[in-house]
């Protein structure tokens, strides 16, 4: 039972963290380029001009499946906890639903990792050195400092919690089915 509660709580926490991760800026830029980059929004400017990135514009759409899956995981785990508090137990269907939600979140983590790569590619262009040589000489810019807006511990939790939930829920369901089969035999 403790394992079921822990996995549900972990699923709830990871879905909340993923939603926070999606809605808040992940990188903050200061220097030649200023602004922030997030999965669902960005604001960038350099040398007094607003910058636009078609890739980052598309990212907003690509995060839609992650929003949906983490919302489903959030609702499922919250409802399961509510039901547990009311009835003091988890039904096998609830556990199966939670397992499905955890599976969706694991896939979402994969998508998120792919999208992070896209964000980092844009970041490497925007935050690159603008120093260059021209016919007048060497023009040196101060550069851009990039700060991670999300603490590393949060990133670690986001990437690991769904796996932990999935593993625990699978283990619970396996134990349950084993017990049930034994009971039938008896």
């Amino acid at each position: 039972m403790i394992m079921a509660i822990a996995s549900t709580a972990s699923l709830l926490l990871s879905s909340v963290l993923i939603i926070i991760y999606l809605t808040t800026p992940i990188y903050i830029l200061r220097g030649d380029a200023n602004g922030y980059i997030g999965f669902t929004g960005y604001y960038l400017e350099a040398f007094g001009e607003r910058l636009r990135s078609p890739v980052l514009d598309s990212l907003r759409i690509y995060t839609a499946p992650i929003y949906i899956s983490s919302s489903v995981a959030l609702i499922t785990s919250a409802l399961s906890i509510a039901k547990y508090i009311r009835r003091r137990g988890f039904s096998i269907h609830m556990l199966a639903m939670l397992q499905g939600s955890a599976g969706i979140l694991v896939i979402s983590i994969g998508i998120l990792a792919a999208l992070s790569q896209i964000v980092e590619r844009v970041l490497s262009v925007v935050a690159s050195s603008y120093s260059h040589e021209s016919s007048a000489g060497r023009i040196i810019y101060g550069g851009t400092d990039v700060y991670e807006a999300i603490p590393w511990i949060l990133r670690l939790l986001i990437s690991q919690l769904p796996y932990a939930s999935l593993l625990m829920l699978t283990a619970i369901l396996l134990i349950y089915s084993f017990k049930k089969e034994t009971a039938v035999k008896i």
Partner: protein
Amino acid sequence: MGSLSSILLYVLAAMLLILSAGRFLGLPIFFSLVVSGSMAPSIQPMDLAVFRRGNYSIGDVVIWCSSPMYCVAHRVFNISFEKGFLVTKGDANPIPDQPVLLSSVRGVLILVVPRYIWIPLILLPLTLYVVTNYRRLFSGSLWAMTPIYMILLYSLGSSIYIFLIPPSPVIIEGLSIPSVEARGAWISNSSLTAELSFKNTSIVSIDSCIYYYGNSSNACSPQLLGDRLLIEIPRDVWRDMNRLGISRIDLRIVASLEWGAKLYSWNYTAFHSFEMLNISARDGVVRIYNPNPGCVDTNITAMMAERAGEPWRELRISRCLEPGEVVEIDLRGYGYAFIRIEYVLIGSKQIIQREVIRDHKPVS
């Protein structure tokens, strides 16, 4: 009510599935979800664009695909039927796309369903389904698992889609890196002028300025006049350059630019050709004019006599002729007069000798 909403939901889901796969299935009409703002304001991200297969012309919005998964819906900018390609351009993009083959065009836009219309249209039956099937969904029946696994499949499909998108180049629109270009350097009067052109920046201050000639260097304090740097070269430097036979000056600056940038300049080189002294003798008066920006070391020797056979009298002037200075030597009143002018021009000695008066008459 519950079964009706279920049927409606499944019919809607099937229709959406077929229409969204229409571009691969070869259906005459299909739709595609817009993911970028390149066609703004006419088509916004998340709008549904409906296409039909058929002919198109310049100005139409077409969808072309470079891979089964990567498609672009942009306006036709140019078509070359003979060469078999067309060029498209996003309304919000500053430049047209790369030319694509005519065979890659899948359809032409016939309708745009804005996101504020189609999203509620999808959500409404979905909400209706959840509300009417609430008990079944959470009562432990097999139905409960259906939405979860539908979303699981959707997530899987989305991830496959995202991983299949070919890596496109990262384009940053609006990025204009401030820069400075050198236009040239020249010498006029006694000043060195360097002209620069600025793009989205300007000089805030000059941190250091040095000019070089031969093996010598001097610090300078340039005047900034618009896009030009004006450096006054002292007369002594010109004098040195002339004496040493140097005609080249190199300027180097370190300047602070806007946006916190620094310019470490290359050598801005200017050449100066020193001119010979302008010497004229008219009616017994010798005029010597220095047209150079620096003073020229000059020795003038005039030899005069009243009559033939008389010993010569000498007049010696040794000085550095200032720039623009005119020296006049009046030899009128003598029966015979010669002048000898020695000066240094670009490191080499120049000697000019001239008979000015002979037998009381000026020699032309």
